Structures are given as structure tokens and as C-alpha cells.
């Protein structure tokens, strides 16, 4: 075991100072040290994407990032989405399209889609399906997830400020 390091990170707008071992993953920092258990771990080897969070606006696998690598960064997790209490358009679309069953993969898909839509405002269905294939869901067969994201992309595109 090695010495702990002090890191500072901003999670959903709140600054935290945490002392972590260099080998501690960002997923464990969020889940165990900060109690933000909405970020799930499904594989801890970078394939399932259940742990996806936004790090400085980019989707990352929190199981593949060490806490120390996140020092100084700004993290968004699923807990930060419905910040004012009301579900976001994307969260509502997930429910409307039955894009979740057990819900274990859902935070990862939401963060993946938020990161993606911020950079790709008008994707077509094929592109969305390809993006969705970055993460695994064992329950839904993905059709609802794709439908929800396509729906929100269109909605946001039409409502964008011109």
C-alpha cells in the first residue's frame, strides 16, 4: 500500500477534498468516499459503461480513471441531472420509452447520452444506435434507449436558441 494523496474535485458543482490512495478508482471515490452511489460498477474493466460520468464534460469510465487523475476536474454524475428536483427531458424520455428495467445501467446511459448530445446536437438514429452500443444493458434490448435519445435530440434541436 502506498501513501494517500489529497485531491480536490468538483462534483455536481460542489467542491470536495478527499484523501485517496493512488490506486483508488474514481468510481470508488464517488461511491464510497462521497456516498454518490448512483454511479454503478458493472464490470470494472471498462466495457459495460455503467460507471460512465462526465469529467470536464467528456464521458469517461469512472472505473478506468484513478481518483488522483481526476484531481482538479469537474465531474457530473447522475445525481446532478435533476438538480432542481424535476426530471430532465432526457430522464423523462427514458421513462416514456421504457428505456430502463432494473435501472442498473441507466445512470451510465444517461451520462453517456448527455455528453454525446452536448457535442452532437442533431444525430440520426444510426449514429445514436452506434453511440448507445458503447454501453451494455442486459434488460431492455436497447430499443427504448435509442428511441428516448433520438426523441430528446429532436426535441432539443427544435427548441434550440437561434
Amino acid at each position, binding site marked *: 500500500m502506498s501513501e494517500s494523496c489529497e485531491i480536490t474535485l468538483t462534483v455536481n458543482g460542489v467542491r470536495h477534498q478527499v484523501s485517496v490512495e493512488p490506486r483508488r478508482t474514481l468510481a470508488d471515490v464517488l461511491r464510497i468516499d462521497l456516498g454518490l*452511489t448512483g454511479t454503478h460498477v*458493472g464490470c*470494472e474493466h471498462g466495457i459495460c459503461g455503467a460507471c460512465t460520468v462526465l469529467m470536464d464534460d467528456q464521458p469517461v469510465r469512472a472505473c478506468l480513471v484513478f481518483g488522483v487523475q481526476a484531481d482538479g476536474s469537474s465531474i457530473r454524475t447522475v*445525481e446532478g*441531472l435533476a438538480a432542481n428536483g424535476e426530471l430532465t427531458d432526457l430522464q423523462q424520455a427514458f421513462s416514456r420509452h421504457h428505456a430502463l428495467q432494473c*435501472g442498473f445501467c441507466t445512470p451510465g446511459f444517461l451520462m453517456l447520452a448527455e455528453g454525446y448530445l452536448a457535442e452532437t446536437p442533431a444525430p440520426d438514429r444510426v449514429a445514436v*444506435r452506434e453511440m448507445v452500443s458503447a454501453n451494455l444493458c442486459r434488460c431492455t*434490448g*436497447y430499443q*427504448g434507449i435509442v428511441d428516448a435519445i433520438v426523441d430528446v435530440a429532436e426535441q432539443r434541436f427544435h427548441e434550440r436558441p437561434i
Partner: protein
Amino acid sequence: MATASSARQSQQWVGQPLQRREDSRFLRGTGRYTDDVPHAFALHVAFVRSPIAFGVIRSIEVTRALEIPGVVAVLTSADLGHPSLTGFLDRDEFVTTSMPILAHERVRFVGEPIAIVVATDRYIAEDAVEAVACEIDELTAIVTMDDQVPSQIPIHDAAPDGVLVDLRMFTDDELEGVLAASPLVVDETFRSGRLQAAPMEGRGALAEWIDRDDQLVVTVSTQLPHQVRTGIAQALGLVERQVRVIVPDVGGGFGFKAVLGREEVAVAAAARILGRPVRWAEDRLESLTASFQGREQEYTVRAGFTEDGVLTGLAADIRCNVGAYSAFPFTCGLEPIMAATEFLGVYKVPRYASRSRGIASNKPPSNAYRGVSRPQIVMVMEGLMDRAADRLGIDRVEIRRRNTIRPEDFPYTGPNGITYEPGSYLEALELCAAQVQQLGWWQRREEAAPGFIRGIGIANFSERNAYGTATMGLRRMPMTPGFEVAHLTMDASGDVTLTSGTCSAGQGHETTFAQIVADRLGIAPDRIKLRQGDTDLTSFGWGTFAGRSLVIGGGAAAVAARKLATQLKEVAAYLLSVSADDIELSNGNATVRVSGESMSIDDIAKTVHFRSHLLPAREEYLLESHGSADPSGMFSNGCHAALVEIDAGTGAVCVLDYLVVEDCGVIVNPLVVDGQVRGGIAQGIGSTLYEEAEYSSDGQPLAGSFMSYLVPTAAEMPPIAIHHLETPCYQTETGVKGMGEAGTIGAPAVILSALNDALRSRGAWLEHVPVTPADMQQLLALPIETESS
């Protein structure tokens, strides 16, 4: 009887595509799965696991591990007092063996737990695992069902030939004669690969002894709260009251959690011994290689047909590689029994005989996985239909039509002794075939680009589900599942708490159960809160598996709701000075039918709780009821079709389009039904084209991560169109049939059928899953024959 009341029931909520009430917490990240349950003082566990498939343990050296700061204990089987679990059937054909909680004397598969390391932190626990030294004398691993090493000790002494169960449930002296006289006998061997259910949340447990309650409280990710309680109590020498099992949100089950694992018991034992809270979260390597698997099966079948393609008889020899142990409580007899009993599906087979065996190997134990043997038997029956159709020159839909149980045949009793209640077997087949035609699939089949070939598959099948005690009793388990009991309590605000011994793992019970109850109480579903997954909070029940929850648990809830409605009407009748028969409950009110006079159900609830002096003396105070249900079991049915394309260069397979006709009786929530169908098909496609828990010849697992165990992604999924038929069930008050497994059951058969259609021109024929690109390349190398369809 039940049907009469279901016909009368007004259905304002049942049938609506209500958005699920559980969604909000899952979308906010405030759902709570086992590893999310906070506990400031819990110690963390990692397991020392066998690195070899079969061997004799010489020594386990833990001193070095104990020296690591933060390590609290390293416990072996002896330290726990050699607890074990025994999943057995009370049958002569069944060899009873036990599964030690931690390996004792022998290790029987790679990944088998040998010791439990308890430390202040998971990282430290894993460091300590590395520091435990096990000396094991390696033996030759038994990996396939044909491996035999007579010169060494068997896997289990009680089964020297490795056969743990050998069933001849169906015999027929006339069958051989009938086959000999049949113009066509299709003689084939079908195989299916070993699978892992791979829910996104692995198993997990958090255990703590609470002295005040004289109880071991175990939070665990399971489908079977009460059976987990029984197993832990038995293994640790406690009475049932002393174990409380709590199941928070479950991140997928699929049968993988319809079991009690040894790790959960070890965690509970460690908490008891150390007097401290202990937790464990399974990682993906453990989940894929050291938990439960299933589906490694082989079917050698001979099916006789007349010249017109009508089945004359069928003989089957079924072998299931059940792994190293018999799982608790469903046993290693689960797959063999299911395969033999339900083999014939939707077809009329006049004569049937089968032998069905479960064979031990040095692989993780098999347990239920969504559909249990039905994906295989449907694949085999549909394969036989396709083969016979080809040989006899009959259209593939036509040969199915000629053999399917027809509407006028119901109730139909097959040679397997099962009586089938009405289903839409023929209607589903006809609708599916008509859709394929109408959607232009036959045209699309011919339009493959150069270098690609296309095929269309069809599979017509039934799925038995919601097995009650009458049916389960035939299996002869020491604990016979089947019934459910539901409790309803209306509180002083007029809200209702419903409890059930079923246990959702993502199926949306909180929504669908509420829809059933809402219609009967005349209140909105969001006023009804379902509580499950706590053995101290709910009546004893059998959990969630085999499409039973909404049928049996929901059926019990319907009965309880009907009784509570009667109580509400009686109070309203007294307060409004009318007869209870004149009262109707709807839109939150109790209304007198003729006069229209009404009072709110909230007011009734308030009166009963706070102002009972206004009411006449009653035998029962408050607003509480319970209901039970125990149907014998029923068949849902469906027909699937798929259009697939093969890249003749690479052998890659793409499922272009997929069509489902399904009949699960009365639909409570179409969103949920469609979700189950689509999710099930994804798993079925995975098992047909991508997934396999492969092993090397010395029993080393080759699929230990999601890089080698290939769960389908969105990129592999076709669009799926779903059509519903509705043949209500006779056996429950709701008319509902189970439907959670149908997608997984139909997909392998239909994809294989489509691939064989595409490959017909090559004279190739597939009878195994998964079909890999390597398989395809081999077949595509065959010379092309003249095209026919």
C-alpha cells in the same frame, strides 16, 4: 369461479401503458442496490478461489495474509464449522450431493471459494487474497460430458460415473415400432453452449448480527428472499426467525439470482462469527466464472413423420452438463426435468419417450437461466420441423400448421401428461406468416447484395409458467414452491400498502401490481405502494422466477383487493344508509349506484382509523385483507420470425429484422410486456450468435470478462415489431399469463431456422448454438447447390 369475477372487473388501469413508478429513483441515481446500502462500519470481503479445476486440498496457509494491516480474519471451511447447502430431489434417480460453503477437501472448479478474507477495505482484502497460499494436488479435469478418467477419484464419490440425475419420466413400448414404420425419421443431435445470465449487477451481500432482535440481518441481491432465509438458517444452524433477508433494488436476475450462493452464506457466517457487519460485492470475473451457469446441453433425437409431414413419435436422449454441484434450492435436476417434461411444445406428438441426464463436470454449477431448457427444446423441435419440411418438400409454415395443437383440441393432454389450456397456437403462426408476407420479407430475402446471403426463420412455441404447488410437487423438491399470499393495508390517508413474497429484479412490479389493485379499489395506482423483498415485512412466499410474479403474486393481490373493496363498501353502506351491494368504488369514491350519493374513500379510511365510534362494533377493525393464489401453471405462446443476413466473405451474421406475435393472456401494462419481450430476445440473440462461457481442456475459464463473454450491444440488435393476441387465463382472477421468458426462448430457434434457410443452397445444416463466425466460414466454404426455397 375466477373467470366470472375477472369478466365483471372494470379495467380502468389494467391494460394501460403506464410509465413505471420505479423509474424516478432509477433515473435519479437514488435507486438502492445491495452495494449501495450505506454502512459506516462494514468490513469488506474478498474470496480466495481455486486456480485449478479439480484437485485435493493439501493445505491452506493464511499467516502471511493475516499480517497485512487492515486484515481482520481469514476463514476457511473448518473455521466456519463446515457448513454446506444441499439442493436435492426426493427421487430414486437423483444422487444427492452437498455443496460446501467453502471448499472442503476437494476443489471442483476454477473459482471455487476456498477461504473468505475479511478486511477494513476491499483493496486490502484483495491484497490479502494474494498472500494466502493453497497447496492443491491437481487431478485431471472433467470438462465435457464425454470426458472420463476412470483411473482417478470421481467428482463426487456418490456418483462414480458422474451422473447426478438420470430420468426416464416418459416411456412408450410402441414408440420404436412406430418409428420403424414411419416413412421419414429425422435423426439429429443438437447442442447448446454454456452461458452466463450476466445481469449488470452481480451478486452481493451485507450481513450483520443485531442482538436486540436476536437476528442475522442479511441484505442480498436475490430473486428468492424466503428461500435464501431458509438456506442461511439451515447452513448456520439458526431458526428461520433469526434470519431476516432484505432485498433492495436488484440489478437484473434472469434466474441467475434464483438461487442461494455459497458466498452469501459465507458472508453471513463471517458476520456471525466476527460479530461485525461484513459486506461483499461480486466482481465481473467472479460473476462470469465462479457463480452459476447453464444451458450446456445435448439432444439426440429421432422423430418420425408421415409422408404428409405429420409427427408420429419422438425419442429423445437429453444430457445437461450441470457442473460441479447441485444448486440450492432448484437442484441440478432443474434443466433435465424441464427439458424432458416440456419437450413437445405446441405440437401434437402421439408417442414420446425420453431419457434425461444431468452430468457433473469441473465447471461452476448450473442454475436457472431465463427459460430453463425451453430455448433448447424449442430450438430442437423447430429444427426437426425445418429438417422434415426440407426432406419431404413441404413448406415450413405448412408442416408446422399440420402438427400444431388446434383450437378444437383444447384442453389437450399430451403424452407428457400435461393438459394444455387454450392458447392461440395456430392463430399466432398464421398471423406471423401473414406478417412476413405483408412486410415483404420474402422479397427482401432475394435482395441481398452480392457477397451476402439471406434467410428467414420461423419458430412457433409455448412457454409454461407460473407453476403452482400442484405442478411443482411433481418435481419432488423438499420445499415445493407455488403459492403466493398478498397483504393489503389501507392507512388513515386512504393510501394502500401491498406486500408480496415475489421480488422484482426490474420487471416493474410496483407499477403492474398497483394497476391490478387500483381497478379493484377504485383508486389511482399511485396511491398503492408495493413492498417486497423483506422477510420480516412480507408473508412467506416463493420469490420471482418462471413468469410467476404477476400471475401468482398479482393474482393473490387481486383477491386481497376484492376483499378490501368489500370492507370499504360495507363501511360506506353503513355511513350512507344503503346496502353494500348498491355501492360502487371508482375514481376515489364510494358511490351509491342509484342516487349518485357518494363519499370519498379517503374519508372512509379516516373514519375507520380515527372515528371508529361512528361505526357499529365490528369483528375486524381497520382496513386490512389478504389473498392467496396457487394456479397449477399455464402456457403462454408466441410465434417469432427473423430475417438474417450472412456476409459470405467474413461469416458475420446480422439480424436485419425481427417479428413477434405473443399471447400472454390479459396484458396489464403493454410497455412492460414489450420491454420483457425485447430484452428477452436480446439475450436469446446473444446466446445464439455471441455468448459462450468457454473452457479450456483443463477446465480453465476462457470467458472471464466482457471482452470475451460477448453480451450483445445496441449494434447487434434488430428492430423488433410486436403483435399481441390475448387468450385469457382460466386459472387466475386477472386472466394474466406469465411472459418474462418468451423472448429468450424463441430467439435461438428462429435465428437458427433463418441461418439454415440462408445456408440451404450450400447444403449446410446447423444444429448448435452459439454459431460463431468460424462455423459460418466453414459452412460457406461448401460448394453452392442450385437455389431452392
